[in-house]
């Protein structure tokens, strides 16, 4: 089942299924934010935004509205 990246809980791992490339900066794609790659939610900033992920072994923080454009499926 596809869910938005922001619906992950802290520490949860998932696989990226779809990215809305219109809304996602190329830089993020180049860091490995691509369908098929693994992602883990590491931290959410104290005020609820931004989100801090391990995407494809890259440790990056992105804003909630960007993370919402990325669909994932939970790892079983």
């Amino acid at each position, binding site marked *: 089942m596809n869910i938005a990246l922001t619906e992950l809980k802290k520490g949860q791992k998932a696989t990226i299924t779809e990215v809305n490339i*219109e809304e996602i900066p190329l830089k993020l794609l180049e860091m490995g934010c691509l369908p098929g790659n693994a992602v883990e939610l590491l931290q959410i900033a104290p005020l*609820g935004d931004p989100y801090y992920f391990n995407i494809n072994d890259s440790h990056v923080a992105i804003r909630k509205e960007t993370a919402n454009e990325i669909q994932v499926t939970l790892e079983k």
Partner: protein
Amino acid sequence: MPNSTIKVALIGNPNVGKTSVFNQLTGLNQQVGNYPGITVEKKQGFCTLDENTKAKIIDLPGTYSLNASSIDENVVIELLLNKNDSDFPDVAVVVTEVENLKRNLLLFTQIKDLEIPTILVINMADRMALKGIEFDIPTLERELKTKIALVSSRKKTGIKELKELLLNYNQMSTEPCLNASSIDPEYFDKLRKTFPDQLLYKLWLVITQDVNFLNLDRKEIESNFTKSHAELKRLQQKETIKRYQFINDTLKVGQKIDTSKATDFRAKLDAVLTHKIFGYVIFFGILLLIFQLLFDWSSIPMEFIDQSFANLSSYAKQNLPAGELTNLITEGVIPGIGGIVIFIPQIAFLFLFISVLEESGYMSRVVFLMDKIMRRFGLSGKSVVPLISGTACAIPAIMSARNIENWKERLITILVTPFTTCSARLPVYAILIELIIPKTRVVGIFSLQGLSLMILYLLGFGMAIFSAYLMNKILKMKHKSYFVVEMPSYKVPLFRNVAINVIEKTKAFVFGAGKIILALSIILWFLGSHGYGDDFKNAETIVTTQFQAENTTIDEEALEDAINAYRLENSYIGVLGKTIEPVIAPLGYDWKIGIAIIGSFAAREVFVGTLATIYSVGSSGEDEETIKNKMASEVHPVTGKKIFNFATGISLLLFYAFAMQCISTLAIVKKETNSWKWPAYQLVIMSGFAYVVSLIAYQLLK
């Protein structure tokens, strides 16, 4: 065999320790300049490979890929695509690091597609055991069609091997790693047939970027090969996926990761440093500590420097033959140089702290913590770095705003950064605080002077935030909220990197700003010791006659002071200061302060140097008083009150806190925003605001 020089380009993602490798290769044998026309820092250095061969190493700005999204990154592709550039590399060195090899290799595969001999450096090799990572180097070398050097800049290993590889660069394969054109064979086939002489990947870069390098008619490419923006981005995504497939396949055979060995040091530290309470407490604690140390630590060397230059000046005065040249040296040049040297301790300490915070990886956590808060004011979490760097100098700070993806957030950051207290204000603050704030301690440990300085920093920062908030309401711009921050792993800062950074930045400040300060000191000395009209020429007679007429008897020294004061008042500078006095008198300033303020529009720190010059011109030469004491003993000729009283001091502090007084900053804002409109607004609004605030403060306090 004749001596030869190999040109080497050092390329890599940000945060891979590229600069460490550069420092290891070149030592202090490096030059920092700018690329012509743009303000991207150009670093190059030399290193000896063997007795006949040298390498000229160019440290290119960090980039994630050859798809440039900033002018810094543009520099990289411009160089790599232009064979005619005098710096076009014979060999490219792609620096990667152990932990992020997968991502780092994306850039590597792109460089390989340019068919330049490319060496792969895997840096931070000392962390391999810690992270449970092992490499099969021969396999990687075969798959990636390259030679690999495992380097640890911390343990200083692998540099010798890298030099060896550089020497033999012409034996390197220039074959691409993969065939990227298979993402759209039809399209690329057509492209190949139309431009048979050009490298396909170069053409692709020209099409997807907004650049023109190949001396091809861009229109020709565009008319035949235009695709919509979305289509191009989709192709770029396909290309990226393809590259990652190749990289994943390669690493599957060439890299072993035993995750059980990996320590979760980063996760533990992240939990504390980005904690909802501790995170902020630690951040503000660090800021407080920095400012306390800055004022306490640097006061010792500063007093020493202050005293030494005063001694030097009077020594020179006694031992050189009297005359115009001696006056120039003792009253213009020596105090002018002293005015620059005295601020080296504070500037060096500030750059030291900033580079430690950046090198350790902590700064990214601050960006993460602050983004939501900063966004309320129309800024980005990334604005924290310019705002903090702004406490050193607004110029590099404004340049560091480049990595803010969103134009509106970036523009606001650029416009408000000059409000933060730069090191040029520090000397002005330091001397005024010394004059008007008592040297007592609060709660036993905090010095009142240190706290006052902290308040001024907060005031500047608060003003930056407040004006950002206003601008966010006023400016109407559509924007997408792009924000990507890499969170690098924590590292103990390398002493060498920090030291080189501090030395380079301090040097740039001293020689950049210093030249202006020294030149102005000399000009001001000239204007202060020369004049026109009879009042200036006949000062001695006029004053002596005056005293005789009043029938007062005074000693010789006091008479000489009076003559000098009269002479200064009627010199060029005195006339200039007096002309503007009506404008600044309501702020509590006399014409001498007025002159110092005029000088400050070249650079704020000129304020102190100017006063030093004015007062040393204005008193008899035997005097050994230092600038500060001279300012403290200055009294108003009519009222007999101290000039630098509390009200004037506060008024001046506020004026310097808010006024836009730096020509270099205005120039950089023009460059970065590509318009005179924004710097003009800055100048008028900031200075106007400063005038009003100082006026109110003085009128209330006097």
